[in-house]
């Protein structure tokens, strides 16, 4: 389905729109307050952008340093070119452990590679432990936000879901009651399942350390209790030095949840005998990232730290919600990331799902100029002839018209007598779309230039 079609359905869902509006505005306001108390926020943004930019410039070097540091610390590093390879690597490890269940946290990258589906085909059930991910999984629903995957649901809907799917009768829509129900459901599994799969927020090349930040503590249990831990991460998650966390751990929580610090920041380096998982694997995932890296304008997308501040301020996202993007990465960042990761094969119309208002760029903690990348990707689609011939022809004709004064003035005169390129004969589709909800302006009898000539 195209974004336009999916959005049309989503826009009709008034409950979803109320839920998303309320939640994004709340988080957006919290972010604004948390950012306002940092006097050097703009400098921090610049620092975040340049750390990421420098890392990407020498990504090959940093990846190899990460690999050797982690190997020294007792971890195993795997390289995956695409989603399928990554899933196979994970499946091999799970099979070797003879596990039939795995627990999961920070699942965004594994959702990108559709790991749960691959596990399920192999007879392994994946249990999402992040509360919002768990809600989405229980409902058989799709994620709609990077950080709050169930943002399109409100508490009453979630309580209903828990009653139906978990068989817990005494649950109401009070957050404490909901959390208690989730804990009851998850705790036993957290204590018994032998294999955990996590994502990563950051990875440190010089030490081989992996870092996740989270709010619930389930992530910490996932990364400490099981026998075996597998981390699946995109190659762009790397930071060269330990000290770079000093910048990133200020930028991320404030941008993401409006908190000074996340309730749980977990860092682990390889394997420690007798303490925590005794077998630790990292799967480094490319899946289109090196293609994005090769694009001089598009590569800034790889700076993204998945805070989702851009989603919470986007006027399009606020109204359509995340599912209309039909990508695990929705909103403004999704509109540039998703098409690039598939070499424009999927989600190609997402760069059009923006007014270029620039609200996303204003809040991005690593200064990704999202409007610039959106425009760039629109250009790539035109160059690769992925847009209709009608549009290409019309735009070429219009450029030719504007390129000469004589033809421009002729078009103006034609518009004035009501039959010209700017009115009915020209591009009936777009005009009909405009007139769905807006009157067309009347074309005045006299253009500005004719007035100027006559005065």
């Amino acid at each position: 389905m195209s974004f336009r079609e999916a959005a049309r359905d989503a826009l009709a869902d008034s409950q979803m729109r109320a839920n998303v509006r309320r939640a994004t505005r709340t988080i957006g306001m919290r972010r604004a307050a948390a950012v306002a108390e940092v006097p050097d926020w703009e400098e921090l943004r610049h620092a975040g952008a340049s750390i990421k930019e420098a890392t990407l410039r020498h990504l090959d070097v940093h990846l190899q340093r990460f690999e050797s540091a982690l190997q020294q610390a007792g971890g195993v590093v795997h390289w995956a070119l695409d989603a399928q390879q990554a899933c196979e690597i994970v499946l091999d490890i799970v099979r070797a452990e003879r596990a039939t269940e795995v627990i999961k946290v920070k699942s965004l990258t594994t959702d990108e590679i559709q790991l749960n589906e691959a596990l399920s085909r192999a007879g392994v059930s994946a249990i999402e432990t992040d509360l919002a991910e768990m809600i989405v999984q229980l409902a058989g629903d799709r994620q709609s936000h990077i950080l709050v995957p169930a943002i399109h649901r409100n508490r009453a809907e979630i309580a209903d879901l828990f009653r139906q799917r978990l068989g817990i009768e005494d649950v109401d829509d009070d957050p404490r009651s909901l959390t208690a129900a989730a804990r009851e459901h998850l705790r036993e599994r957290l204590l018994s399942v032998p294999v955990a799969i996590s994502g990563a927020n950051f990875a440190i090349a010089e030490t081989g350390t992996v870092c996740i930040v989270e709010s619930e503590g389930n992530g910490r249990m996932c990364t400490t209790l099981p026998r075996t831990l597998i981390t699946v991460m995109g190659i762009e998650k790397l930071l060269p030095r330990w000290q770079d966390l000093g910048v990133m751990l200020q930028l991320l929580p404030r941008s993401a949840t409006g908190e000074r610090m996340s309730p749980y920041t977990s860092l682990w380096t390889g394997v420690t005998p007798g303490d925590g998982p005794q077998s630790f694997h990292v799967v480094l995932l490319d899946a289109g990232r090196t293609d994005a890296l090769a694009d001089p304008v598009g590569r800034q997308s790889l700076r993204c730290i998945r805070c989702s501040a851009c989603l919470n301020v986007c006027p399009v996202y606020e109204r359509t919600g995340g599912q209309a993007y039909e990508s695990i990465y929705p909103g403004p960042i999704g509109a540039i990331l998703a098409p690039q990761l598939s070499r424009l094969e999927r989600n190609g119309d997402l760069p059009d799902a923006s007014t270029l208002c620039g609200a996303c760029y204003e809040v991005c903690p690593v200064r990704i100029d999202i409007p610039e990348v959106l425009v760039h990707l629109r250009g790539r689609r035109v160059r690769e002839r992925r847009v209709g011939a009608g549009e290409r022809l019309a735009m070429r004709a219009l450029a030719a018209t504007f390129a000469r004064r004589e033809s421009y003035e002729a078009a103006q005169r034609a518009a004035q007598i009501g039959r010209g390129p700017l009115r009915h004969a020209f591009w009936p589709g777009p005009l009909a779309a405009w007139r769905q909800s807006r009157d067309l302006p009347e074309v005045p009898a006299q253009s500005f230039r004719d007035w100027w000539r006559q005065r």
Partner: protein
Amino acid sequence: MRLTLFVTCLVDTLFPAAGRATVELLERLGHDVDFPIEQTCCGQMHSNAGYEAGSLRLIRRFAETFEDAETIVTPSGSCAAMVRERYPRIAEMTGDARLASRLRALTPRVHELSELLIDVLDVEDVGASFPHRVTYHHSCHARRALGVQHQPLLLLRAVRGLQLAEIASAETCCGFGGTFAVKNPEASTAMLTDKLRNVLNTGAEMCVASDVSCLMHIGGGLARMRAGVRTLHLAEVLASTGEAR
């Protein structure tokens, strides 16, 4: 001061009153206004829609037309942003270093109208009189790309008889976005509806802005609703001296 007007294709063709008002206002303030007749379009639509070749033709044309102008004024935040903030980068990305350096010399001389009045000409009270209740819509490109936010408000507050009504969610886009309005008309309409609700809630008789593209969108929605609230370009308010209009 000698001022060269870049009127924009949209004002020239569809909203000439905003162009005439710009000339009247600047001349009333004692400036000479020049209008190079060879000008057409800045190329923003082509650039934003991904048609770089078409946009580049128009960028070159703009450079040739305005090369000798000392101070360029335009009644559009969006077109000013395109020229000043994006022209040099676009030329750079296409690898045309000569064009890029020509543009870097030219584009800092381009100003949006309210920016010119406040930041360059240093005038807040332009001698206008407009006894109406109005609200002001900030265009996204003026506010975010040019940093024009306080300038139009300073100018409006100095207009005699004018009552400026504050609008809720002033920083939110109206949903126009050029081709967005026709490629995603449903999402665009949802954004417009919220904007119209906020406009109507102010109780203003008119919605004023510095970009006729936003005004075409908001005005098209207001007209469709038969709301009885009209749209007006900032220049038209500032040009008004209270005589019949």
